[in-house]
């Protein structure tokens, strides 16, 4: 693409962005990341995924974004690399242990986990402090990791559903094992309460279990019998049990929402407006932490989409996204047109309603606060 042409498209999108975003920050990391994980309300961790040595970085969000009162007097727009460290292999999954300065990673090659100290005031180096042995020495997708929300540092992890175990970090002791024979590989793992967790398999089936009991898990079968399709899952961590919903998205763009306590029951569905369905391995689907009914999807292309699920019905119909962040696709730094930029990960800010971070395969990281198109025209409500 001609430089002038490229600049033009950028200009159009940027000019459009004046109305469609409240805040927009665009960064270029030295190496792309597949992980974005909050370590506090103000900092995130990113890490490289090249075959050999990589960096883990803890980035503090720009002060201007976080400043609420004196925003206009703050000119600071940069990320601060507050801590950094080196890994020996790729980082495919990174989970922060709440209430600590500890993080756990997996390299996607086996189900072993590495434990890290993110560093404090006295040092800016992220150091490896230990490891946790997983069940599989070789694994195609690697393990999913979930940190127990409260109490002592414990991690739930596993590469496939039968491997899921809860390990205490300090002792390495296995406190719980999921009893099931199925060898379905996992695509997601998360706690929905302090002891209850949800494990989403690649084939679309979802297991719900309680770490306090050894009772067999609740199983909800895949919404589709098509075995070529991969599914990803996210459960909303709402304050009320009634708002605990689960969404499943497939590589063909099908989305199914159900209630956590009645996974097989009638929920709502939609066919997402995704390009190149089928060609994706890094799909991420996420419920918005503070916006009711909103979900975000990425990984199909260089776009992050936000949908309002309350518009969905019982029968799958084509859904239009409420908002699309096209920044990564539009300003891609990749010169090789045959390998388009793909969004590798995205996360919502835990408190700011419409603030998200997204990362793409070209090393870009964007921080954006979008304007709800339905509310445009009036003054933006925080």
């Amino acid at each position, binding site marked *: 693409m001609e430089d002038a042409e490229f600049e033009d498209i*950028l*200009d159009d999108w*940027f*000019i459009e*962005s*004046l109305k469609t975003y409240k805040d*927009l*920050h*665009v*960064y*270029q*990391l*030295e190496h792309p990341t597949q992980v974005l994980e909050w370590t506090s309300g103000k900092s995130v961790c990113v890490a490289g995924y090249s075959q050999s040595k990589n*960096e883990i970085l803890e*980035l503090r969000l*720009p002060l201007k974004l976080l400043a609420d009162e*004196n925003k*206009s*007097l*703050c*000119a*600071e*727009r*940069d*990320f*601060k*690399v*507050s*801590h*950094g*460290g*080196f890994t020996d292999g790729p980082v495919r999954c990174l989970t922060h242990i709440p209430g600590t300065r500890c993080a756990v990673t997996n390299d996607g090659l086996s189900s072993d986990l590495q434990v890290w100290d993110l560093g404090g*005031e*006295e*040092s*800016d*180096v*992220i150091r490896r402090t230990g490891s946790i042995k997983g069940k599989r020495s070789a694994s195609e997708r690697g393990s999913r990791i979930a940190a127990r929300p409260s109490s002592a540092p414990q991690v739930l992890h596993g590469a496939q559903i039968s491997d899921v175990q809860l390990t205490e970090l300090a002792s390495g002791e296995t406190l719980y094992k999921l009893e099931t024979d199925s060898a379905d590989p996992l695509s997601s793992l998360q706690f929905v309460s302090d002891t209850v967790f949800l494990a989403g398999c690649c084939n679309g089936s979802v297991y719900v279990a309680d770490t306090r009991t050894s009772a067999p898990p609740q199983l909800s079968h895949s919404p589709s019998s098509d075995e070529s399709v991969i599914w990803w899952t996210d459960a909303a961590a709402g304050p009320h049990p009634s708002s605990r919903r689960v969404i499943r998205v497939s590589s063909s763009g099908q989305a199914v929402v159900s209630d956590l306590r009645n996974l097989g029951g009638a929920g709502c569905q939609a066919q997402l407006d995704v390009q190149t369905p089928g060609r994706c391995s890094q799909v991420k689907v996420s419920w918005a932490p503070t916006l009711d009914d909103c979900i975000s999807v990425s990984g199909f292309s260089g776009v992050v989409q936000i949908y309002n699920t309350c518009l969905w019905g019982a029968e799958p119909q084509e859904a239009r996204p409420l908002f699309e962040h096209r920044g990564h696709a539009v*300003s891609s730094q990749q010169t090789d047109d045959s390998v388009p930029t793909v969004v590798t990960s995205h996360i919502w800010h835990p408190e700011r309603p419409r603030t998200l971070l997204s990362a793409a395969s070209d090393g870009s990281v964007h921080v954006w606060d979008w304007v709800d198109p339905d509310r445009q025209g009036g003054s933006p409500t925080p």
Partner: protein
Amino acid sequence: MPEIKVTPLGAGQDVGRSCILVSIGGKNIMLDCGMHMGYNDDRRFPDFSYITQNGRLTDFLDCVIISHFHLDHCGALPYMSEMVGYDGPIYMTHPTKAICPILLEDFRKITVDKKGETNFFTSQMIKDCMKKVIPLNLHQTVQVDDELEIKAYYAGHVLGAAMVHIKVGSESVVYTGDYNMTPDRHLGAAWIDKCRPDILISESTYATTIRDSKRCRERDFLKKVHESIERGGKVLIPVFALGRAQELCILLETFWERMNLKAPIYFSTGLTEKANHYYKLFITWTNQKIRKTFVQRNMFEFKHIKAFDRSYADNPGPMVVFATPGMLHAGQSLQIFKKWAGNEKNMVIMPGYCVQGTIGHKILNGQRKLEMEGRATLDVKLQVEYMSFSAHADAKGIMQLIRMAEPRNMLLVHGEAVKMEFLKGKIEQEFSIDCYMPANGETTTVTTNPSVPVDISLNLLKREMALGGPLPDPKKPRTMHGTLIMKENSLKLVSSEQALKELGLNEHQLRFTCHVQLQDPHSDADTLHRIYTHLKSVLKGYTIQHLPDGTVIVESIVIKVSSSAEDSNTKVLLLSWSYQDEDLGSFLSSLLKKGLPSGIC
């Protein structure tokens, strides 16, 4: 061991100013001489007591080099040269030389006239200081004296900013000043060749950041301007003639065109005259695009931006005005500000840092009531926006620069060591070089390993080549013999014969002789033969000959046997060797003193 010493002047952790001392090859150089903008007392000046406790600095410094016109790099220069005292050369690029005095005078006015300070340099001092300045061109080597040479490289960042290469003999240092690695609308990116300095000195202030894109900063600017215009407000942008004014104008012009906006945009004529004047002078310092624009037309010829007239400030409706000076401390921008401050629909956008004592500084610190002349109070109701457009390299940029220059060591100033361990580790890992991070006032000593270039005579070279063997390998040095002649500034390696000839000396041979007594009943000839056999068995690999004239020769050592006059069984061996065979000769004499083994015949 040869070494280079680097000391960032200043104390504790304060980051506000740059002033670095470098001692290299017996020369002392001061890099930048900045003012700390956060202090009101003497702490704002660098602490020169490190150089000398009292008295002038002229005898202690070989030169001073200023990287660019920002006050935290040149603000203390007149104080240093005129109040502390320095009469030696001060080097800076042409644009820096032209712009520095303007900024220094502005700064002086604000500090003395507005803040009423007394221990400060005067206008005359600024002039006297600038008389000591020797301007530099890019990529041109300048001989400061017989041994010290310096060269300036393009740094981007601001007009005239340079990175400087300092060389004494075969030791060198590169100081970056402030620089950026991504080009922007009116300046290019920093560039340096693979000069492989012993030390690359850089600021660490931005080394641990990841910069937000230029586009997003511009977006924020356009958004704020647009929002104000849409609600009928007026936008004041106080600018320094050579700062971002031109860039921001281009931005607004493009935006107005695209959005088909009608609100008027103005710039004060003083601004454009100055800017045009300087850009014309320093056209080689701006980037390609500006150069092309300039060749075609006047840089400030815009479709939507017109020259301002004082009376326009009272016109109703939305408008945007670019006016000088940049810190709202006087002149047109302050006048306009006073008129517009009372309306909350209006906005002032400060695109850069403001010095203490200026209105700009006060409003950026949140002050909403200002005391003006004659006790009048001004209520600041308009929106105040602080935006930073300055171009700095970040963590990625530093790595890029190191890759470009390939230094042997890295040195980062103005950072807290505990906050930079990761960066240090990263640099050490990726480039296998040491990374130093001295605190202010702390001296870092870097041992260098300079190579001494020597010319070798053709004859000597041919002789060594003729000896055959493997080609020279830097990892396996081969000993060669020659004589080093140091004449004037040249070093020459020649063969010994040639050296003697050149010096008009005769070569003398040194021969050692010793006598060894031996008890042996045989005849002289037989004893000699026995010695020959003995030596042949002991000294394998050496050339040993038994000559018919009655001598045994080992390499060049001559051995003769004769009988003692008193007793024919006492043999006297005469050993004679030249200086070159001293070791072997000594060994033989010790060996033969032990006598001959009985079994020999």
